């Protein structure tokens, strides 16, 4: 186990989560959420959960981001908080 790698990814995860929630542009927020999903997918691959990582890459980072962007496209990009 490469715990230092693990810790770096985990810290990036927290940063990505905070950014995704604090950006006022919803499109950017969805994109950062995609980054968050990819980071966590790396983490799971590293922790030996290959099936979970594969699913997260396909579902979390792929489809979730796409449908979120589709919604932002159909509604509005601006957010007050």
């Amino acid at each position: 186990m490469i715990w230092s790698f693990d810790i770096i990814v985990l810290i990036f995860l927290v940063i990505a989560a905070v950014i995704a929630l604090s950006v006022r542009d919803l499109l950017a927020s969805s994109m950062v959420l995609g980054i968050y999903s990819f980071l966590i997918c790396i983490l799971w691959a590293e922790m030996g959960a290959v099936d979970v990582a594969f699913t997260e890459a396909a579902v979390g980072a792929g489809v979730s981001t796409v449908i979120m962007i589709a919604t932002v496209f159909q509604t509005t990009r601006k957010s007050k908080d």
Partner: protein
Amino acid sequence: MDVFLDFLIAKFNYWIYVILMMIGLFAMIAKNNLIKKLVGMCIFQTAIILFYVSIGVKEDARIPILTGHEVPHGGHYHTEDHERPYIDAKTVTNPIPHVLMLTAIVVGVSTLGMALAIAQKVHLHYDSLEEDEILAKLQLGNND
């Protein structure tokens, strides 16, 4: 210092999962924008998945796909098939949390899709995604 570092590292995943979960929970409750609430929901759910996957990690263990090269552990299996070594459970990651979390990821994306559809419908009806604006419109149009 070393003791402290050991303590920190020993449960680091659990600390971070709590932090991520609380970020998500806070966003779900306090954010005003509906999409932001859903971003929070994603983070919240992933944090729980992180917790589960962390349960199953074993130090220096391989992924839960048996290729026949697992570390044998005393003797052989007493079946007809003598080639198969008896696998030491310590060397293979625990597969149960992975199975459970596959389900949880799928549930997560289903909930997200449903919630996004509802958010679009809200936008269709109220022309806004901000909770306070929608509530203000509701107060105005209470008598229609």
